[in-house]
Structure formats: C-alpha cells, structure tokens
C-alpha cells in the first residue's frame, strides 16, 4: 500500500511541473512585451521600465523561471501590482467564502446526484429515468449566471426569502452564514449534479448487468440491498473519478458564482484583478487552483483502493 501511495504521489510531479512551466510561459508567449501589457495602453515609458525591473523581466528567461519557481515552492506567489501586497496573503484572506461555497456544492451535489443516478439506473428506460436525464441535460446547458439570476428573481426579489447577494462569515453564526450560501450552492450545484447523476446512472446500469447481481437477486436479497451494497460499491470508481474531474468545472463556476452573488472570495479577487490588469494575482490564483485540482485527483486516485483492493497490487 505504501509503495502504491508513493508511486501515485510521484506521478503528479511532472503534471505540476508542466502546469508551472505553462503558467510561467503564458506571460511570455504573447510575443509582445509583458511589462507594456501590464502597464496598460497609456503608460509612460518610465512606468513600463519600472514594472520590467520590479518583475525582473529584463533577465534571461530561464533565470526568471528558476527564481520564480523557487519562490513558488516556498509559498511565494509574487506581489500584486495594484496594492503591493503578497499574492499568497491576498488569496488566504479571500479563502473562506470560496472554500465554504465549494464544500457546500460538493456535499449538495453528491447528496442529490447519487440517489438520483441510482434511482434512474434502477428504473432505466422508465419515466423516472427519463426525468432524471432531462434534469441532467438541462443542468449541462444552464450557464451558472442564468440559473443564479433566475433564483435571485424568484427567491430573493419575488418571495423575499433569501438575501440577494453578499456573504456572512461562519464566525457570525451558522444561520446567517448558511442563508447566504443557499442560492449560490443551488446555482453552481446543478451542473455538478447533472455530471455526477449521469455517470452514476451509466455506471450502476453497467454493474446491474453483471452475473453476481443476478446471483444476489436469485438468492433473495432485497432490492435496496442489491442496489446499494452490490451495485453502488462496484460502480463507485467511475463515479468518484467524475467527482474529481468535475472539480475543474466547479472551479470555473466558482469565479462566475462569486461574481453573481458578490461573494468576496478568490473568484472575486480574480475578477477584480482582470480590471486592474494585476497579472501576478491571476497567475497566483491559477497556480493555487491547479494545485488543488491535482491534489484532489491524487486523493481520489488513492481512494480507488478502498473500493477495489486489487488496485493496490497493480504495477
């Protein structure tokens, strides 16, 4: 088991390295002068020069990369051009709303999608199945802000049940905190529900066709027991894989959702950075999110062995 974990962890190093190289090169790929781009269209030449020196853009590319990468490994993501603060501090400061939203979406989506998917697989081809599939296709097609504004219109403006936007930290009480997260969670959660429900359905249907399911039925096991113990556990690997890969979708959605509901999270930080052309912040956010994505998928990879012990012994 230990060797298996080590092998998997080592396998993520090249991916992280490629991500780092790519993010670093982005700034230089445009062919034009990064300092001039950051300075903006109406910048004085001295200003451009100052930025060039500040970012060390006058040094050879590989020196810049080694320097930057060494910093990143020590948690130094650079400094904001806008307010001179460390990008890592800016991100940490904005972390709570983003983590709160992401965790609540994952809990909501898994809790809704897996029962829906199992139900659809069990009733495959019947009305319930078709309804679940309609929800899935709709979920894929409704952009986050479309659903977000429809929900705000219905629940906040017409019914006046929930706040239109904003965020209350958890420290100020659970209910005020949760109230502000309900609509963002629903808006961002639907696409994730669609993704997981569809994979759960497909995966469970495949397992239900196996011989051991027929055996379980033949020996008189009750349907819930067959579905949950035999089918779902054996169908788990593609489902958790989808949950992990879906994190990428979720991260993109977080940026949009935070903008719709004015949540002061990392997504808002990114959007504010767009307007200010604060490239170091954007770069830092991408690096952190990509790292999270790789780590989550590593953990999911490792969890496979819980569902299927044979995996531990594979080469």
């Amino acid at each position, binding site marked *: 088991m230990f060797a298996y974990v080590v092998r998997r962890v080592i396998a993520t190093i090249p991916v992280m390295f490629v991500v780092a190289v790519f993010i670093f090169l982005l700034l230089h790929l445009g062919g034009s002068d990064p300092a001039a781009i950051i300075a903006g269209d109406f910048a004085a030449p001295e200003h451009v020069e100052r930025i060039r020196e500040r970012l060390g853009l006058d040094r050879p590319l590989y020196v810049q990369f080694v320097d930057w990468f060494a910093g990143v490994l020590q948690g130094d993501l650079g400094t904001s051009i806008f307010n001179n603060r460390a990008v890592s501090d800016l991100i940490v400061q904005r972390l709570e709303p983003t983590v709160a939203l992401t965790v609540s979406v994952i809990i909501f989506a898994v809790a809704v999608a897996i029962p829906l998917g199992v139900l659809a697989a069990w009733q495959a081809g019947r009305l319930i199945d078709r309804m679940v599939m309609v929800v899935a*296709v709709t979920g*894929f097609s409704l*952009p986050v802000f479309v659903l977000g504004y*429809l929900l705000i219109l219905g629940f906040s*403006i017409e019914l006046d049940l929930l706040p239109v936007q904003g965020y209350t930290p958890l420290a100020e009480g659970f209910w005020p905190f949760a109230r502000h997260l309900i609509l963002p969670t629903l808006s961002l959660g639907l696409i994730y529900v669609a993704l997981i429900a569809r994979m759960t359905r497909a995966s469970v249907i495949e397992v239900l066709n196996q011989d051991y399911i027929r055996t379980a039925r033949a020996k008189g096991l009750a349907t819930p027991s067959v579905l949950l113990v035999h089918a779902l556990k054996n169908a788990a690997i593609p489902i958790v894989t989808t949950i992990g890969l879906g994190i990428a979708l979720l991260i993109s959605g977080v*940026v*949009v959702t935070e903008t719709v509901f004015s949540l002061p999270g990392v997504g808002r930080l990114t959007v504010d950075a*767009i307007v200010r052309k604060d490239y170091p912040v*954007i770069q830092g956010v991408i690096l952190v999110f990509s790292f999270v994505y790789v780590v989550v998928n590593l953990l999911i990879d490792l969890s496979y062995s819980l569902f299927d012990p044979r995996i531990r012994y594979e080469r």
Partner: protein
Amino acid sequence: MATVLTPDDLIAGRGGRLVRFGTFARRNPTFVVGMVLLSLLVVASLAAPVLGTKDPIAISVMDRLQAPSEEHLFGTDMMGRSVYSRVIYGGRVSLIVGLSVAFAATAIGLVIGLLAGYLNWFDTIIMRVMDGLMAIPSILLAIALMTLAGSSIRNIIIAITIPEIPRVTRLVRGMVLSVREQPFVEAAIASGTKTARLVRRHILPQTITPLIVQATYVTASAIISEAYLSFLGAGTPPEIPSWGNIVAEGRAFFTVAPWVVLFPSVLLALTVLSVNILGDGLRDTLDPRMARRM
C-alpha cells in the same frame, strides 16, 4: 414493430424519406424541437438587420431602463439601447465563437492525437503537456490569456480553444491506439500499407464519428465560455453586444430592470441546450455503441 425504424435504418436509407423522417421525429421529439430551435437562432442572428432591430449600439438617454413593451420588445438597458436588437446581434458572437473554437480545437486536437497515437516519443512528451493543461481550470486559463492578449474576438477564440484541445487529443489518441490493435489494421500493416495511407484509409474513418460528436459538445462549451468571459469582463470587447456583455452590463440594475439580464440569459441557455441536444442526437444516431455506453 415493422414500421418503427432504428437510427441504423435511417443511415442505411431504408424506408421512404417522409416515413423515415416521421418515424425519426416520433422517436426523438426532443431532437426535432432542439433542431427547430437551433435553426431559428441561426437564422435570427444571420438575418438580424431585417428582423425589426434598431442599431444595437445606438444610445438613447430618454429611453433608459424601459420595461418590455410593443415599442421595445425586450425593454431597454441603462443607456436606452434596445435589448431585443442587442440580443439578436449578440447571437452572432456566440455562433462565430462556438463554431470557430469547435473547428480549431478539433483540427489541432486531431493532428496532435494522431501523432501521439503513432510516435511513441512524441506521445510521452505531449500527453504530459496535455495532462498539465487539463489541470488548469479552463476559465482561469482563458482569463489569463485574455488579460495578456487584450480583448478581441480573435483572442477570445484562441483563449477558449487552448483549454479545449486536450480533450480532443485524448479522444483521438485513444481511438488510434484501439484501432491499431484491430486485426484489419494488423493485416494492412502486414501487407505493407504505408503509414500515411493507413492513417487516411483505416484510422481516420474510425475517428471521424466520435470527433463530430465531440465537436458539437465543444461548440456548446465554447458558447458558455465566451458568455462567462464576457460576463467577467475578460471577453468580447464591451462595445460589441454579446450575451455575456449584455448580462454583465445589466447586473448592476438587476433588481430594477431584470429584463436586461433575463432575455440574453434565456437565449443563451436555449442555444446551449439545443446544441447539446444536437450532440446527443448525433451520438445516438452515428455511434450506437457509444450511445449504449452512456
């Protein structure tokens, strides 16, 4: 059951044309509705100037934030511009971006995928690069590219295409690797077929069907990405009306003038939905094996 035709019959051309279409429509009502919708949207954005639209960027301060009425079908925005005209013209941006990205991502992904499936050394390197690229959240990658490259339709197409390439590459590479194992390809190699001919005659035809289906999904996802980027202020130049831009501008006035946000939103959702329905329909019709797996 003799009159009910399967998708395979349709491809094979069994049954009269009308009967075939009737059967197909009865069996796939959502597909037909989706196609009608999509055609309407395409025609509407192509024929935008003759559909009773006004100049989509003409400012009229007297008409600010008017609710939908006979005069202003979808109401007006905070600068008194007709939301109806802006939404109809905005469809053009979505269609151009969606189709260009689908074409570019598919073409580039196809070439890289074929090479990766064939050259082992290239495969090892390029698939690491693709893994890395896939680990970067696509919207953030596009935001970074747009911030650096500046806002224009061309740059948007490039910024959305890059994160879409790995998925196409993986699909093509996977197909090449599995086709290569099949007996008829082995036979072709054994009988001395040159690689170029092998790819053209045996490998490409096998990959084309899943590729068309994938291209449809890429179109849908590119249309959403363009709307997200414009909504976040890193997309289509603000002076061009695109659905994301209209929503972004209407955001601040949502509580007093929700129509500015709602009309482009609904059109966006319907467009993406009908492209996705087209994709599902193509998948079920062209590739029954894949359909069964989903």
